[in-house]
């Protein structure tokens, strides 16, 4: 359950955002170190492992699978690992120099296209659309816009969308007034993970918006209303989060959806399975799981090399 909470939203406030950045940097460094150690162990003791595999009923291909697994992890997380090492080094500097360096070398040079996430409620500010410039004395990170069910981030580097949207949603959920008996405010779709599903949802919401216009009635879609005080609170939280948000930019991660699958009847006859899926898994959870798997594989491989098990003779 704790893992699931992490997957859904590890960023509920500025403190959690700061903690997430540090944990993520640690995960990247441990994951890469463990992956390289496992790869080295598999390559250097290949003869022993192949002999053990062929003397037992374990497929030799399993060794190849683990080699491919760690290579994929090393390649896909490579840029973020470089970022994690950079961030650890930058933390030796004073905060101002660190922020200035990140702004100059990781923000200004890597601005991406619009990032989009979709909320379950139609959010309106005092003047309709909410727009917050993410800016401080070190420069601009981007612009956050809340337009109906859309959370938009423009002119910002990759890797900022996930934690920023989570933090903004958590803050909006605290300060916005919801319809009576309405659901809590939450992100339900991430356009960078499932674009077609996001397009379909946006079209559906727009249709209800136009229908309300034709009927000349209040919005039909469930709403969350933000007053001037709530908007000021959102701006204050994002302003406080600026240093941590800037630091997350150093570790650009790939966003994934997540699915848990537990076969009630074991494989290969898994006729009955239970599934649970999440539209986006935070890197702390997805890469945290990968780190646990690589560490477990490393311990198992080291154990087998140090204490070879009994296998039948020739």
């Amino acid at each position: 359950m704790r893992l699931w909470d992490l997957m859904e939203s590890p960023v509920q406030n500025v403190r959690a955002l700061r903690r997430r950045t540090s944990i993520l940097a640690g995960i990247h460094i441990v994951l890469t170190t463990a992956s390289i150690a496992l790869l080295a162990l598999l390559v250097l003791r290949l003869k022993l492992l192949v002999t053990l595999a062929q003397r037992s009923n374990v497929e030799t291909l399993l060794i190849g699978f683990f080699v491919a697994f760690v290579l994929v992890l090393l390649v896909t997380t490579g840029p973020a690992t470089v970022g994690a090492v950079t961030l650890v080094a930058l933390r030796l500097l004073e905060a101002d120099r660190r922020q200035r360096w990140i702004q100059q070398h990781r923000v200004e040079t890597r601005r991406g296209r619009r990032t989009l996430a979709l909320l379950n409620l139609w959010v309106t500010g005092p003047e309709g659309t909410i727009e917050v410039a993410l800016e401080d004395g070190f420069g601009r990170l981007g612009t956050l816009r809340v337009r109906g069910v859309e959370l938009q981030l423009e002119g910002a580097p990759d890797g900022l969308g996930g934690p920023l949207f989570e933090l903004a949603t958590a803050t909006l959920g605290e300060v916005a007034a919801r319809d009576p008996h309405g659901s809590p405010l939450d992100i339900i779709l991430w356009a960078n993970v499932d674009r077609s599903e996001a397009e379909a949802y946006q079209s559906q919401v727009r249709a209800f918006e136009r229908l309300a216009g034709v009927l000349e009635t209040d919005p039909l879609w469930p709403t969350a209303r933000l007053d001037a005080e709530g908007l000021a609170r959102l701006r204050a939280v994002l302003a406080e989060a600026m240093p941590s948000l800037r630091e997350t930019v150093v570790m650009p991660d790939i966003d994934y959806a997540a699915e848990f699958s537990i076969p009630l009847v074991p494989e290969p006859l898994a006729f009955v399975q239970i599934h649970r899926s999440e539209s986006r898994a935070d890197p702390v959870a997805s890469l945290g799981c990968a780190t646990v798997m690589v560490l477990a594989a490393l311990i198992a491989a080291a154990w087998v090399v140090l204490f070879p098990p009994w296998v039948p003779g020739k």
Partner: protein
Amino acid sequence: MRGRLACLAIALVALGCRGPRPKVVSSTHRAAPGGGSVIEVVIENTGGGEGQVQVEATLRAAHGPLVRAERSLELHAHERVLVNLPLEVAADGSYRLEVTARYPVD
């Protein structure tokens, strides 16, 4: 509590599935009574596991080809076994002896 029991179960399974840890205690190359020579190797299993190990003896000469003999044998927990490897070459001191014991057998 359940976690500790699971760790204990895994440890017991791991202990029950151990292979041998062969170690060469001593090795000598001497002349055989009927001609040729014999390499005597004492192998010890320093672990509590068991399994088939391979003993490989190599005689290296300063000039000329090397001579090699090998044998597989079953080692039980903490056993010490004497292995004789007969060879056709003379034990005239012109060879340097190297003995290794390997597990698992290739």
